[in-house]
C-alpha cells in the first residue's frame, strides 16, 4: 500500500483551503494535507511534515509565494511547488515558472489541479530518477574508469610481473639445468673415476688435441708419478724403440678421429730399467655433430701374456724345427746304411771274383755304427716322451763314477780318433743312482764337445769336488770349440733347442740331449751348469751327491 501523498497548503483563506481540499478529495487523490498561513509555520512544516508537494496561494498577509518558493528551494529543492491563485495574471505566472515554480492553477480552475499535481509529481519522480540514473551512470562510469584503470594497471603490472616471472623462471630453469647438469656431470665423473680406479688397466682421458687430462690410480702406481705434476711427461717412460710407431699412430688418430690401438713398452718405476709391454687403446668420444670432445684410453699390461706368447711361439718354432730335424737325422743314417748295403750287394752280385775283404768289413762296421746312431736317436725320443709324461724310471745302485767316466771316454775314443780326450781324476768316488743314465749324460757332454769343436781337438774331462760342499762331486767336460752366447745359456737345456748360426748352419742331433741330461741329473739331486763364451769353448758340469770317497 502506497503511503498517502503529503500536501502542504499555504493559504490564509479557510474557505479557499476547504474548497481545495474538497476538490482534491473529489479527484480521488489519496492524501493528507497540512495547511499553514505564516512564514514560520511554512518553514516548520517543511522540516517536520516533509511534504511531497506544496500548493501555495500567491499573496498572503506578511508573506508571499515567491518568498516561500525561495525558502523551499533552499530546503527541499526537489519538491514540486504549484501556485494556486486567482489574481496573478498570465504574465506573472510565466515569470514564476521561469524562476522554477512547478506550475500555476487559477482558483477558478481548481478541477485541473489534481492533474497538475500528478504531472508535477510524475515530473519530479522522473527528474529524480534521471538524476539517480545519471548519478548511477556517473558512478558506473567512474567505477568503470577505475576498474579499467585498475585493469590497465593490473594488466601492466601483470605483464611486468609475467616478464619478470618468465625471466626468473628462465633463470631458475637455467640454474636448475646447470645445477642438474653439473650434478649429472659430477656424478658421471665420480662414477667414471670409481670405475676407472677399479679397473686393472691404466685408464686415461685426453683433450681432442691429445693432451692427457686424467689418469686413474693404476697409472700413478705403475709410473710412480705424483698426481698434479704435469711436468712428469709419460713420453719419458716410453721405450725409445716404440716411440716412432706410437707417434705415427697418435698423429693418424688425431687427424682421422679413428680408434687407435698399439702396443708399446713403459718403464716400471718399481723395477728401474725394466719395461713392460702394454696394449694401448684409445676411443674418441664424439658429440652429436661427430666432433671429438674427448679421448678415453686404456693401457693394459700384456707383458706376461706377450712373454708367454713369445715362449709359445719359440716352442712351436722349435717343435717345427724338431720335426724337420728328426726327418733329417733319421734319414741320414738310413741313407748311409742303405748305401753300404747296396754297395755290398753290388760288389757281391756283379763282381764276385773281385772281393775285397777290408771293404766288406769296413762297410759292415759302418752299418753297425749307423744302426747304433739310429737306436740312440730313437732312445732319446723315447726318453723325452717319458720325461714329458713323468715316466722316466731310474735304477738305484752304487757304482764308481771314475770307472764309469773312464770306460765311457774309452768307448768314444774308439770312434773319434780326431779329438784328444783327457781325464783328470782329482777325487775317486762312488755315487748312488742309475749307472746307464749317468753314462748317457757323460756321452752327451763328450759328444757335444766333439760336435761343437770341429776345429779344436782338445777335450778335458775332470772329476773333482764341486757344488755346494765337499759332499758333492762334479764332472766337467771342457772344449775349445765354438762356445755359446751367454744369452743362450739357459735355453740350451730346453727341449728342441739347437745351436743355430747364421745361414741356417746346424749341427746334427735332435736338440734333446741336454734336456734329457738335465732331467737325469736333477732326478739324482744334482745340478747341471754351463760356462761358456762365444768362440772360446764351453765347460759343461754336472754334480752328484757323493756316496763314498777314497783318497787318491
Amino acid at each position: 500500500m502506497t503511503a498517502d501523498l503529503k500536501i502542504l497548503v499555504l493559504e490564509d483563506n479557510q474557505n479557499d483551503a476547504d474548497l481545495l481540499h474538497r476538490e482534491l478529495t473529489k479527484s480521488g487523490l489519496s492524501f493528507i494535507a497540512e495547511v499553514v498561513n505564516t512564514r514560520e509555520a511554512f518553514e516548520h512544516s517543511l522540516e517536520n511534515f516533509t511534504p511531497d508537494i506544496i500548493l501555495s496561494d500567491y499573496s498572503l498577509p506578511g508573506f508571499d509565494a515567491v518568498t516561500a518558493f525561495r525558502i523551499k528551494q533552499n530546503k527541499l529543492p526537489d519538491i514540486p511547488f504549484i501556485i494556486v491563485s486567482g489574481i496573478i495574471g498570465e504574465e506573472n505566472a510565466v515569470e514564476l515558472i521561469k524562476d522554477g515554480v512547478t506550475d500555476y492553477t487559477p482558483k477558478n480552475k481548481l478541477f485541473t489541479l489534481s492533474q497538475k499535481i500528478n504531472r508535477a509529481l510524475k515530473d519530479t519522480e522522473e527528474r529524480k530518477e534521471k538524476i539517480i540514473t545519471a548519478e548511477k551512470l556517473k558512478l558506473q562510469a567512474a567505477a568503470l574508469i577505475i576498474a579499467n584503470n585498475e585493469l590497465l594497471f593490473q594488466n601492466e603490472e601483470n605483464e611486468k610481473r609475467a616478464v619478470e616471472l618468465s625471466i626468473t623462471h628462465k633463470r631458475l630453469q637455467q640454474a636448475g639445468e646447470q645445477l642438474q647438469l653439473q650434478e649429472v656431470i659430477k656424478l658421471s665423473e665420480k662414477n667414471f673415476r670409481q670405475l676407472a680406479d677399479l679397473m686393472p688397466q691404466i685408464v686415461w682421458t685426453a683433450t681432442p688435441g691429445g693432451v692427457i687430462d686424467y689418469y686413474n690410480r693404476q697409472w700413478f702406481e705403475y709410473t710412480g708419478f705424483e698426481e698434479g705434476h704435469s711436468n712428469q711427461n709419460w713420453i719419458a717412460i716410453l721405450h725409445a724403440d716404440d716411440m716412432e710407431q706410437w707417434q705415427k699412430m697418435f698423429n693418424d688418430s688425431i687427424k682421422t678421429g679413428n680408434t687407435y690401438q698399439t702396443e708399446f713398452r713403459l718403464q716400471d718405476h718399481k723395477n728401474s730399467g725394466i719395461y713392460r709391454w702394454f696394449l694401448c687403446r684409445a676411443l674418441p668420444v664424439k658429440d652429436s655433430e661427430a666432433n671429438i670432445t674427448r679421448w678415453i684410453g686404456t693401457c693394459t699390461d700384456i707383458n706376461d701374456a706377450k712373454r708367454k706368447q713369445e715362449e709359445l711361439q719359440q716352442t712351436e718354432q722349435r717343435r717345427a724345427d724338431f720335426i724337420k730335424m728328426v726327418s733329417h737325422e733319421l734319414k741320414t743314417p738310413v741313407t748311409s746304411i742303405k748305401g753300404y748295403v747296396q754297395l755290398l750287394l753290388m760288389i757281391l752280385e756283379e763282381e764276385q771274383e773281385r772281393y775285397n775283404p777290408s771293404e766288406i768289413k769296413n762297410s759292415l762296421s759302418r752299418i753297425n755304427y749307423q744302426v747304433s746312431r739310429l737306436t740312440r736317436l730313437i732312445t732319446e725320443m723315447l726318453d723325452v716322451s717319458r720325461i714329458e709324461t713323468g715316466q722316466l724310471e731310474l735304477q738305484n745302485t752304487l757304482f764308481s763314477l771314475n770307472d764309469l767316466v773312464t770306460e765311457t771316454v774309452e768307448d768314444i775314443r774308439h770312434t773319434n780318433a780326431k779329438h784328444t780326450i783327457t781325464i783328470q781324476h782329482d777325487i775317486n768316488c762312488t755315487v748312488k743312482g742309475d749307472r746307464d743314465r749317468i753314462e748317457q749324460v757323460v756321452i752327451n757332454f763328450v759328444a757335444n764337445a766333439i760336435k761343437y769343436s770341429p776345429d779344436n781337438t782338445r777335450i778335458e774331462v775332470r772329476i773333482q769336488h764341486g757344488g755346494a760342499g765337499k759332499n758333492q762331486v762334479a764332472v766337467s767336460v771342457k772344449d775349445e770349440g765354438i762356445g755359446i752366447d751367454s744369452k743362450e745359456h739357459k735355453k740350451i737345456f730346453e727341449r728342441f733347442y739347437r745351436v743355430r748360426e747364421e745361414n741356417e748352419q746346424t749341427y746334427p742331433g735332435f736338440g734333446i740331449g741336454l734336456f734329457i741330461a738335465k732331467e737325469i741329473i736333477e732326478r739324482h739331486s744334482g745340478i747341471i751348469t754351463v760356462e761358456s763364451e762365444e768362440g772360446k769353448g764351453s765347460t759343461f758340469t754336472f754334480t752328484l751327491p757323493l756316496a763314498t770317497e777314497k783318497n787318491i
Partner: protein
Amino acid sequence: MKKMANILVVDDDPDIGTMLKMMLEYKGYAVTLLSNAGKTEQQLSNQATDLVILDMLIAGTNGTDVCRSIRGNPLSADVPVLMISALPDARKVCIDAGANDFISKPFEMKELLSRITHLLTRAESIS
C-alpha cells in the same frame, strides 16, 4: 773317357761321404771327398772336375751358398752340380741356388748313378 770322369763329393757326414766315394769308385769314377765345404773352390780350381755332388747341410756352410759360389765362379760355372739332402722340400731351394739336379736322402743307388750318367752325358754333349 766317360768312366774316368772326376767327381767331387762334398758332404760333412763321413759315413755318407765314404759310402758315396766307395760306390762311385767302384763304378769307375775318380772321386775326391771333401768333408769341409770351405775347400770346394780351391779343389775346383786345382783339379778338372766333371761333376759335383753337394750335400745341402754342411757344418760350417750352407750347401746352397756353396752351389751359388760354384755358379758365380767362371772356372766352375759350367760344372754340373747334383745336390742331395735329407731335408723335406729341399729340391726347390737347391735348384734355385743353381743346382742342375737334386736327389733326396735316402736315395736308391741305381737312381743316383743314372742321374750322374745323365748329367755327365749332357755336359759332354754341350761342350
